[in-house]
Every structure is written in C-alpha cells, then in structure tokens.
C-alpha cells in the first residue's frame, strides 16, 4: 500500500473509540458517583448513601415496575404486531401500500409522534371529539385517566406506534435475504394457512436477522425519556425520567442518587434482556412441538383481519397525529368538542419564528457535523476493511449495537458527570461527539449491505486499467453508491435530529435543538407551540430523505444503469 493511505488503517480503531469510548467513559462516570464519589460537589466515596437515598425514595419500586412493564410490553407488542402484519399480508398489494406509507414515517421523531398520539387519545382528544356529543352524549370531556395512566398503557401505545414501522422495515429487508416468499409458497402448497405457514417457516429465519434490532427496541423502550415525559405517568414517572429530573437539580448531591438509579436502570435492562432470551428459548420449544402436530390453520381470515386492523391503526395513529400537529400550529380558538379549529391563523408560526429559526440552525449545525464525521469514519472503515481484508464478525455486530443496547440514561448522565469532574465545558462540541455514538451504528447498518453488494469486478476492471485503490474509491465506488450513501446520511440526520437526552445533558441545557425545545414545550403543554416545533422537527428529519431520493435521480437522470438501485 502506498504511504498516502497510512491513515486508513487507523480509521476502524478511531471509529471503535468514537463508538465505545463515550459508553465506557459514561458508565465509569456513573459508577463513581453512584458510590458517593463526586469531586465537583466536594464529595468523595466510597459510600452506599446514594443507594440508600434511592431506596428511601417512596417512588422507587413503582417506577422500577413501570419501567419493566412498559419496556417489555412495548417490545413484545411491537414484535407481535409486525409478525401478524407480515404473516397475513406480506407480498400483497395492500402490504406494499403499508410499506410505502410507513417508510417515510420511520423518520418522524419520537417526540413528535408522541405529541400527535397524545392529542388523539386524550379524553378531550380527536377520537373522543369525533364521536361527541352525538354518539357519546358528552358535552364535556370525560374525567378518565388515559394519558399519564399509572399502568403506562398510553406510554406503551406510543412506543408501539413508533417501533412497529422500524421493526417492519427491518423485517422486510430480512425477508429479501431469506427468500421468504418462496418458502411461504411451499408451506401454502402443503396446505398451511398463510399466517400459520409464515410463522412456521419464514418467521424463524427472519427473527434471527432482526434479533439485535428487537433487543434494541426492548432496551430503548425501557429507558426512553422523551416519550415517557409526554405520555407516561408522573406520580411517579419511569425510572429514566426520574434520573433526568435528579440530574437537572441544581443541588449537585442529587446527581449521586441519579447515578445510583442509572446503575439500577442498567441492571433492569440486563435482566430484561435475559428474561427475553429465556422467553425466546421456551417459545422455540413450544412452537416446535406445536408445528410437529401438523395443524394447518387454513382458515385464518380473522387473524389476517386483525393484522390488517393493526397495520391500519398504527399508520392512522402516526398520520392523524401529524395532521393534528399541523392543525394546532395554525389553529385559532379550538375547544372541545369541535373537530376543527374555529379559525385558522399564522400567529403561532410568527410568534415562534425567531426561536424556531435559532433551534433549526443549531439542529442543522449539529446534524451536519455529526453526519460528516460519521460518514467519513464509516466509509473509511468499510474501505479499510476491504483493503486489509477484515470482516465484521457477529461479535463485531454486537459492539456496533452496544451503544443502542446500553440505556442512554445509564451512561449519558455519567458522561456529563465525567466532563464536569475534568472541568471540561459541556456544549456543542461535546454534544456532537455524543450524537456520533448513536449515529455511527445506523450509518454502518444502512451502508453495510449496499457496500457489500457492489460488484467487486468493477474494482478489478478499474485496477486493470491502471486505477489506484484511491482512484477506484473516489471515481468509481462512491459515485456508484451515491444513492445508498445519501440515504445513510438521511438516516444519520434523522437520528441526530431525534436525540433528546444527549443533547439535553451533554449540552448542559444550553444547546437548544428543535427536539429539546419541542420536548420542553411539550411538558409546558402549549399545543400550538408543540405543533410548530414538532412539525419543524419532523421536517428536519424528513427533508434529507427527500434529498436522498431526488439528488441521485437528478444527477443520474441520464444513467439508466443506476436507477432502481
């Protein structure tokens, strides 16, 4: 290799550092104060006081229970809904409609989706309004606890609505790899009903491929903050929300308790992953025995109907939720039980124009830097692995997924404390590095397949023409992979735009992005402001996808060989 490429072999190591450094450092920074060591507050450990304080908090057990139930419940429900939709409908025309509908909705930030859902299902929300008072007889909204219910049911609903599109799209891409359509045809020709046949022969192969994303959904659902602030209960809230509250307390001693709670949160996620694995195993045993009996379940119209109903509900919840945001952002006076505002006005947009512009600039700046860094590292890694014949093993995949599996609330507060102890400024630069931790895995995951599928003989034939590896990379491979690279960039931007906790904590509350503003406003409760910021947030995440679709189409408009692929 020529000397000009000597930096390349360092990129995988650098990427690993960017990926895991903050996680490991953050966990370390959580460990110290959890045992009473916090020099910035003049405290030194070790001591068990933080844990004693945590156990003495009367909300401890309820909030632990809440985190477990909502997390496992949401992950299980999401997976079941996805399996049912795929089992009943994959390959049909209706299914392609759902797929087209849900793909862009995948990038709707969690917070915006949650606001939308909140306005749909509240006792004074859209669904009730639709039937009031003509059917329900309600002139006033009923006094029932739907949002913020103590069992966390609305929180679970919010998580499911957001996770179903994610798991569905992951499964669809896995379906292509395992050739699910043909296997299903075989099962059906043996007399099995669609649903039973799919679950028996296709689902096991797909599950193996989406297992890590499913575990990510599980870990994430247990420790999510923004959605839980909006839809979850507050007396008490989930453990993660309480951790963030304690972290933001000006009294530094509360950080010790927050760190102890963060360790507990990590433990909870590990326990949940183990429980999940055990459940996987027993389900495999059960289903083996079951399918051995050869029951065909040829009549599965009801199940298919349920699948269609669920797909419709999830799509409608997301779309109507967004529509609700649009209407509120332009709403004049709008009270119960009116289905629409009495008048429309631009006032909310005018009122928030200055503030939202600042937040938009900050969001774009951060996402731009993060994704630029991320894409350089990711492409650099792929190219270095190619030239030096390295392969990403399944262990490597776990490393890649690690930042997504370790709950944010377990290491982000620790990272902040660590920065504080070293006397480092929290701020934009630190936020960018923190976002990178979550953007890198998604960049890699979305580039991995297109990169590998590229016809390597293009490189051979270029080299035979005398082109150096460097020239091949820049002149042949990158241009040919323009579309997947832009899509990866769009995914990266969407991930960065959606980050709440790292922005809030690592930014020290001083870095204001659309998401932090939107969540702050959501807890404030001004629906018009939420509408404006939620929509801007969604637009910021969706626009790059539109660009990723349009740009290659325009640049390669005269290149038939690059279309559809």
């Amino acid at each position, binding site marked *: 290799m020529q000397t000009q490429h000597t930096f390349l072999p360092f990129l995988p190591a650098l990427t690993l550092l960017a990926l895991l450094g903050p996680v490991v450092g953050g966990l370390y920074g959580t460990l110290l104060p959890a045992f009473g060591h916090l020099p910035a507050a003049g405290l030194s450990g070790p001591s068990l006081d933080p844990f004693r304080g945590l156990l003495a908090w009367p909300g401890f057990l309820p909030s632990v229970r809440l985190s477990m139930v909502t997390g496992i419940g949401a992950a299980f429900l999401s997976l079941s809904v996805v399996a049912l939709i795929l089992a009943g409908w994959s390959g049909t025309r209706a299914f392609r409609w759902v797929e087209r509908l849900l793909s862009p909705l995948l990038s709707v930030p969690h917070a915006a989706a949650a606001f939308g859902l909140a306005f749909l299902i509240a006792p004074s929300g859209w669904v009730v309004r639709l039937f009031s008072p003509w059917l329900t007889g309600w002139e006033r909204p009923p006094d029932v606890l739907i949002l913020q219910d103590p069992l966390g049911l609305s929180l679970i609903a919010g998580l499911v609505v957001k996770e179903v599109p994610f798991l569905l799209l992951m499964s669809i891409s896995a379906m292509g790899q395992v050739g699910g359509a043909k296997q299903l045809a075989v099962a059906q020709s043996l007399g099995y009903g669609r649903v039973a046949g799919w679950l028996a022969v296709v689902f096991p192969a797909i599950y193996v491929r989406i297992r890590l994303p499913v575990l990510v959904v599980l870990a994430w659902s247990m420790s999510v903050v923004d959605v839980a602030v909006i839809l979850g209960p507050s*007396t*008490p809230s989930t453990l993660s929300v309480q951790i963030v509250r304690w972290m933001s307390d000006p*009294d530094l001693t509360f950080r010790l308790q927050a760190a102890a709670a963060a360790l507990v949160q990590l433990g909870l996620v590990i326990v949940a992953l183990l429980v999940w694995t055990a459940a996987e195993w027993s389900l495999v045993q059960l289903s083996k025995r079951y399918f051995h009996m050869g029951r065909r379940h040829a009549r599965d119209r009801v199940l298919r109907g349920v699948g269609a109903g669920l797909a419709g509900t999830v799509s409608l919840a997301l779309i109507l939720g967004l529509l609700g945001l649009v209407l509120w952002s332009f709403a004049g006076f709008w009270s119960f039980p009116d289905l629409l505002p009495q008048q429309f006005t631009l006032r909310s947009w005018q009122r928030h124009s200055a503030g939202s512009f600042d937040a938009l600039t900050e969001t774009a700046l951060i996402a731009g830097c993060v994704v630029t860094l991320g894409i350089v590292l990711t492409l650099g890694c792929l190219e270095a692995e190619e030239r030096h014949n390295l392969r990403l093993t399944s262990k490597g995949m776990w490393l890649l997924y690690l930042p997504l599996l370790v709950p944010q609330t377990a290491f982000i507060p620790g990272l902040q404390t660590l920065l504080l102890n070293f006397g480092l400024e929290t701020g934009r630069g630190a936020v960018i590095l923190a976002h990178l931790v979550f953007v890198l895995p998604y960049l890699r995951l979305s580039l991995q397949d297109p990169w590998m599928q590229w016809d390597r003989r293009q490189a051979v034939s270029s080299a035979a023409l005398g082109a150096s590896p460097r020239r091949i990379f820049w002149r042949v491979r990158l241009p040919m992979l323009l579309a997947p690279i832009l899509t990866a960039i769009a995914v990266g931007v969407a991930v960065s735009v959606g980050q709440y906790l790292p922005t809030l904590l690592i930014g020290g509350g001083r870095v204001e992005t659309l998401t932090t503003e939107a969540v*702050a406003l959501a807890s*404030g409760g001004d629906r018009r402001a939420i509408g404006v910021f939620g929509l801007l947030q969604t637009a910021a995440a969706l626009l790059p996808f539109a660009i990723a679709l349009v740009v290659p189409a325009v640049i390669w408009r005269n290149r038939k060989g690059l279309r559809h692929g």
Partner: protein
Amino acid sequence: MKTHWLKIAVLGALVPLTSWADTDPKNWDLVLEKAQGQTVYWNAWGGSPTTNAFIEWAGDRVKEEFGVTVEHVKLTDTADAVTRVLSEKEVDKDQGGAIDLIWINGANFASMKDAELLFGPWAEDLPGWRHVDVVGKSVQSDFTVPVEGFESPWAMAQVVFMYDTADIADPLPSANAILDWAKAHPGRYTYPQPPDFLGTTFLKQMLVELIDNSEELALPATDDNYDAVTAPLWDYLAELTPVLWREGRAYPPSGTRQIQLMNDGELDLAISFSPGAASTAIANYELPDTVRTFVLDKGTIGNASYVAIPYNSSAKEGAMVLANFLLSAEAQANAQDPNVLGYGTVLDVAGLPEEDKKRFDSLDLGIATLSPAELGRAQAEPHPSWMTRIADDWQKRYGVAQ
C-alpha cells in the same frame, strides 16, 4: 438546595466584603457614558414566548436610546445562573463574569445576597426609582428578605384564580368555597404538579389562607412548628384530592398545560400568578372568552420580579441602564398590556407625570383582568424555607401515590 446553602455560608464567612471601583450609580451621567457600547448578558427564564418577545423589545429600545446591546441568555431554571456565578467566585473570577443581569426573586435572591454574589446597593439610586410605588407594593422585601437596593423591581405578580363563567356562576372567594364547589363538581379542578412553581404557589396560597396567624410564616420554618402550622393544609388536601381532576392520580406538569386543559373543557378552575394571564390567553385563542378571574376575600399572595447584577459583571453600567429602562413608564405600560405580557406595574401610576399616566389609562387590560382596586392588597410571601419543606412533603404524600 442543601449544598447551596452550605457552600454559600462557607463562602460568606471566608470572603471579605468585595471592594469595587465601579461607577457610582448616583453619578448617572457617568453611568450612561460608560454604558455606551456595552453588551449586557441578561439571564432570564426563557420558557415563555411572550416574555422572550418582551425582552427582545426592551433590548432593541436600550440599543436605540443608550447604545447598550442586550443578549438574552434563556434559562430553564434561574438556579443555573446562581450556580454559575457561584462557581465563578470559587475560581476567583471576580471580574469579567459571564452574567450581567439576572431575572430573579425569592430563594435565589436570598442565597446570592447572602453569599455576597451581588453588586450593590444600586437600585434605589436609579433615576426611575422615584416613581416606584414603595408604599402600596412590596418592592423592598423579597420573600421576607430585605432588598436593600441589591435588586431592582420590574413587574408585579399576584395570585388569581381563572374560572369559566359558562360553568361556574360566581367566584369562589375562599379555600372552603373552592372545596365545596370541587366536591359538587368532581374532576374539574387541579393544580400543576409540585415542584412546579405554580403548583407550590397553590399550596402556599392555601396555607396562608387556612391558618389563623400568618406571622409565623415570615420567619424560617423550624422542626418545632412545621407540623403544627402546616396541619390545616394537609387536612384540606386530604379532602380536596379525591375530587380533583383524575382523582389526583395525575397532575398537569405546568401552568401552560393547565390552561390547555381548561381550553379543552376538562377543567373549570385554574390558578395563575399573573392577573393578566387569562386576558392574554383569551387574546391568543388559548382560552374561551367566557373565562374571568377572581381573588380570595382575605387576599392573595403577591410578589415582585426583580433584576439583579452579579458582583463580577463586566457590564454593570449597561445593566443599570437596562434596569432603569425597565422602570420607565414606556416599558412598564408595555409589560402591562395584555397583548404583550399582562404583568402588573411596580410604579405608582397616580403619581406619574400626566403624559406617562396616559400610557396606562389608555391600556385596555382585557376582559378577564381585575382592576388594581379589585385585586386588593397583596399578601406577603412566606419565608422560602416553608416552601422547600412543603414541596418535599407533598412529594412524599401525593407525588408517588399509585
């Protein structure tokens, strides 16, 4: 807050009175001259679009008039600014601090004044001070702490209750009237979840309302008297909570959400710390135009918002010019306009020159705003220590109730 108090006490003991060679506010011409070209970093809560817009307006005006640039540093919690100045003092950064002016009152003022983190006294030397209503409004003691010129008032707030006349015929002028009504109409009243500021204000207001002798509240709470003094409040909440919105199993997280719920028809009654807020909300389509406000017969708690200058500010003159501008009839009348902020004025309007008086007379306070006479005299705030304890106690009793 415990470590704050501790740290502040230690620092207060160690650091001698800061000597300063700053411009004497009595020499106002010199202040104006030095202020020219300065940039004032005004640290103020940034959670409300209307206040942000007002601060921007004030900044534009002092730029035009006095050549002072104002940068609004938007805080989520004023305590952040206190911590910042404190940490600057810890590393001996006694000049060129990051903060020039803080929107402040209550406990934060008390701790900063105590730890000598404030520049001053200067407030009573401002030219605008002579029109401030020192008799009728409690602008010289802040949550029982004597102000002594270390902060300058700029807005008055007072507790009012907003009620929807479409659902409630007459005001509910006492704690018991509210309770009786709530029992007759379960699920139509709630308050923001403490430690939200408005939620703790409700608890505070009911405490003041329910006890016979409110003088004890002017002194710090002690282990000896806390239980006895607050007992009537907890008895009251025990009766009220089961008939609250959602039976007290959930609370709105903030005052804004409370207003939204009123707009949605879920609530008929809500507390506010701003007499003009209801009118402003009606004007912004955020409340139905049938909403009006009332105060309790025995009066309601009121307090002033202030601005203070940290001891290490790098633009003290500019900050004083801004504080003085906030006292001007122009700024005060603008702040009182329900289309802008709807805040009460700190000025003695009757004593103003005719021209300035007109600014206030021509103001339409809005359909839901009480006149100064109807608002009556404000009750004093209890000592901050009461609030801290009550908020903690509430958390244990109601904050984790499943």
